[in-house]
């Protein structure tokens, strides 16, 4: 059952009624049944994976919780605090490591097993070995990348003592499998999400309208912009002889916008649905194409994944004692700057390699991650020099022209990255770069050629108007203009007017229907 399926919303409407009719204390049970019902309807064959992840991480949490209780009891009786704590920490580490390894192994097997085996076979072939590793052909369980990361964050947070373990398996299962978010995120944290899921959220019609508005905005981004843009991009890329030169970078610009609208649109839809149930999901996007640097871009794009990486990979790695020692050694050896940057650079490299490969089991995704790692490391290394050059050129941070220049540069780099991800593989990326070089045709910007790409002038006009609206809203939000609050302040008439206009726009101008199977890009990850 897709997020763009009408039946999903019929289900949501029924659930809303059942949820708010149900006595407060039992409301979370409605969500749990709905979540598992949704998963069984959407992908019942993968339910054992979800069940295994849920149970194993819950069990790990419970075992660590009991360990903590035992430690507390011992500390009350015994004075050897440090020894007991160290022993307890070891036991907890073993439990959490077991749960992490198990779930990472499942994720790695189903998602990367085929990739690893086929590359190993290439390697064996290269070194002249006759035997081959069987290549598993496993389908990737729906939402596994998201719910695995979400449940691992729980295990690690329990281990770190940041949160207490959840004694009730059913309540925990709701946290792992909450239906709107489990397919494509955002990746939630237990301390922020679970209390909301388990609370007796009160009916608030204003909040339901807010959620509806956010959902419609998500539909607008997904169906009016992303799916329309995708058709144009496919048209350009599949007609290599016709569309060369500037057409290709334009396709990459459109891909960048399409992927953003697809993913953030999907997130808006699930956030809107959750909001109707009184649950505020974590923010996943903050206008990434208005970022003024690559690190800032990643603080605005897929925020929950970035934050997950920061908390569970980047910091542990950057603070890893061997790396710190290596940095000190380099500083003593006279490579002062390299010594300072080594832990950060290493952590960035690993984090972005993981982010890249998280998207899919293909070399292009690893290269995509490394592309950003290199950009960020270059930024770390060359940052001070770039600042000096900027100052020399009179580029002042507060000037709009400086900001516009930076925003444009970051956006251009993001579009360059799409040469890697939009291509079928790395050789296709190379082919696209060659196609870009094959013709010099800047006149297509002015001679009307672009108007025909979408099939008709009207289609192009709709796309441009929609992108224009998205741009205006983004800039207003960036400047602190609270659009949703302003609309709400306009009263019921204003709220419903906006909602009804949005419905008309989405229904009429959206790209959907039997000829357009609508899939969210990040559902596939």
């Amino acid at each position, binding site marked *: 059952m897709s997020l763009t399926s*009408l039946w999903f919303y019929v289900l949501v409407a029924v659930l809303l009624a059942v949820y708010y009719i149900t006595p407060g204390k039992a409301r979370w049970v409605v969500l749990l049944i709905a979540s598992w019902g949704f998963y069984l309807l959407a992908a019942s064959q993968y339910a054992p994976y979800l069940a295994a992840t849920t149970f194993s991480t819950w069990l790990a949490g419970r075992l660590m919780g009991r360990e903590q209780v035992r430690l507390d009891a011992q500390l009350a009786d015994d004075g050897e605090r440090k020894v007991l704590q160290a022993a307890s920490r070891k036991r907890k580490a073993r439990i959490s490591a077991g749960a992490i390894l198990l779930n990472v192994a499942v994720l790695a097997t189903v998602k990367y097993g085929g990739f690893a085996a086929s590359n190993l076979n290439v390697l064996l072939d290269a070194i002249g070995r006759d035997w081959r590793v069987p290549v598993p052909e496993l389908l990737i369980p729906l939402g596994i990348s998201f719910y695995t990361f979400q449940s691992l964050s729980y295990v690690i947070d329990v281990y770190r003592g940041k949160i207490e373990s959840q004694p009730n398996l059913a309540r925990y299962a709701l946290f792992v499998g909450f239906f709107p978010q489990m397919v494509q995120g955002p990746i939630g944290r237990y301390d922020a999400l679970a209390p909301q899921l388990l609370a007796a959220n009160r009916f608030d019609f204003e909040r339901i309208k807010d959620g509806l508005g956010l959902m419609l905005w998500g539909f607008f981004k997904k169906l009016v912009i992303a799916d329309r843009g995708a058709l144009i991009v496919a048209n350009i890329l599949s007609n290599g002889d016709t569309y060369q030169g500037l057409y290709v970078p334009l396709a990459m610009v459109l891909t960048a916008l399409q992927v953003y609208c697809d993913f953030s649109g999907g997130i808006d839809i699930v956030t809107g649905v959750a909001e109707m149930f009184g649950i505020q999901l974590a923010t996943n996007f903050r206008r990434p194409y208005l970022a003024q640097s690559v690190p800032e871009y990643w603080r605005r794009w897929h925020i929950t994944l970035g934050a997950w990486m920061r908390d569970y990979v980047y910091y542990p790695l950057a603070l890893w004692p061997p790396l710190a020692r290596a940095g000190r050694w380099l500083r003593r050896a006279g490579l002062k700057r390299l010594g300072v940057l080594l832990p950060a650079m290493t952590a960035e490299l690993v984090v972005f390699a993981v982010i890249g490969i998280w998207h899919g089991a293909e070399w292009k995704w690893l290269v995509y991650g490394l592309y950003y790692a290199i950009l960020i490391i270059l930024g770390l290394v060359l940052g001070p020099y770039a600042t000096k050059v900027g100052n020399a050129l009179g580029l002042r941070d507060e000037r709009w022209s400086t900001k516009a220049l930076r925003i444009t540069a970051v956006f251009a780099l993001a579009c360059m990255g799409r040469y890697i991800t939009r291509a079928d593989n790395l050789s296709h990326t190379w082919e696209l770069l060659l196609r870009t070089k094959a013709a010099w045709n800047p006149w297509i910007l002015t001679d009307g050629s672009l108007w025909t790409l979408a099939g008709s002038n009207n289609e192009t006009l709709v796309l441009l108007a929609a992108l224009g609206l998205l741009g205006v809203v983004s800039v207003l939000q960036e400047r602190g203009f609270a659009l949703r609050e302003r609309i709400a302040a306009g009263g019921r008439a204003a709220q419903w007017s906006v909602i*009804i206009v949005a419905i008309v726009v989405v229904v*009429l101008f959206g790209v959907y229907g*039997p000829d357009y199977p609508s899939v969210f890009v990040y559902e596939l990850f």
Partner: protein
Amino acid sequence: MNIRRYAWVIELLAASVVVLLVLYTINHTVIKRDNLGYSSLSRTLPDYYAQPADSVDVLLLGTSKTMSGLMPAILWHEYGISSHLLAGTGQAPLLSYYLLEEALKSQHPKAVVVEGNMLLRINNLDYLDEAYYATIDHIPLSLTKIKLALEMWSYAEYASPEVTLLPFIRYHQRWLKLTKTDFVLDPIYRRSLHGAWLWPARRVQLAEGYMAIDDGGAAIVDFAGIYMQRIADLCAHEGIQLVIVNMPDQNWSTSRSDLTMAWGQERGVPVIELNDSDNMAELVLEPGVDLFDPSHLSKEGAVKATRIVGRFLRDAGVPDRRGTALEAEWNLDYDFYEAYRRVVDLRDTTDPGTWLQFVNNPDYTVLIVSRLDMTEALVGDVPWLLSQLGVKANLTATPTWSYIGIVRGGQTIYEQFEDEPITYDTDLADGRHVRISSNTDEPNPSIVLMDGIHQGGGQQGITFVVYSHQMRSVVDVITLNSSPPRHFIR
């Protein structure tokens, strides 16, 4: 009770009503309809709903064989039987059943005629979506439509219930293609063909092995049998006489005939076999006259087949409605059928002389427009054709010209030719506004508009737009181009 506490309920209901109205309007706007046509699947149900209550005594259900082979106008003209044809291209019995269920909401027919061939047809629900939706889209949202949607879904993957129930999901992208014709609320053709299709005759050879005694390989298809049984049950429940008719079909065989006969006998349902020797003696299907193709009758063949079916219905007790309040309207519909029959022949003509004989008729006004610089068009049959139509101007004497003309029944009503673009506006005798414009503006040089809607022109050459006063619409558009062989371009 604190009313303010429940103000949200009123707000929600009011907003829901507005949203539903908006969606209904969008749905109604983008749905495929045929406001200017008279014989299309998308007119079948709207025409049916427009019939006065309890005015239809016979419903005709089936595939294209029934569409082309049975004529409600002939049933009326010969027997005074009021009928409506709800058949459609490749109609599956599932759709026939639900059309019958829907039809019975507004009419109480005495008899239902169903094509026997449907018993033997495989499930073709999974590829005829265009044809099915053209009919289904016009069924209002109701329990019948919900049941139809759910059952269609179980047989055809494309037919997800939301697409069947909410046509805008399928058609919303038509906003790009909407024209003025989509906003014509009052169909131009107020008269009805009652669902009939008139197909021209083709020179078709009678197939060898027709009605031969075969090996009995035919079988009733499960899917078809289920819904034909439901049709039989519904008719029995409503006290309606069900009649099975096997339409003339060159692929028909004795085993097929025997199967349908046996099916009818088991249920006490009479079967009219139009392929048997007795009926064939009356039908006398002539190649080149009565057949459109080996499995479909032409409009001439349909008259013969309808007479036989009509006689059976009359003998079965279906009343003669002549002399009742229905008569005046039905007679006008019959005249409409006759006019349309002539139009089918007109459109089937590719010979200028024959075509001319048709259009030199007081019922037709011919609107003529040429493109600039079409000297080459005035060769071959064109000058002769123009002169025969009554065009007075000596066009061949002017090397570069822009011409517009209006002729009716061989008489020139208006003509003008200049060395520059011409635009002429006028109202026809029945009040329809016409603009004929000869100019060089791309993409529509030289066009004929009627009430602002494009009717013809735009092609290289000289264009003739034929308007029928009886049918109140343009019935044929041809262009004679300047390139050999100067055939009609339709």
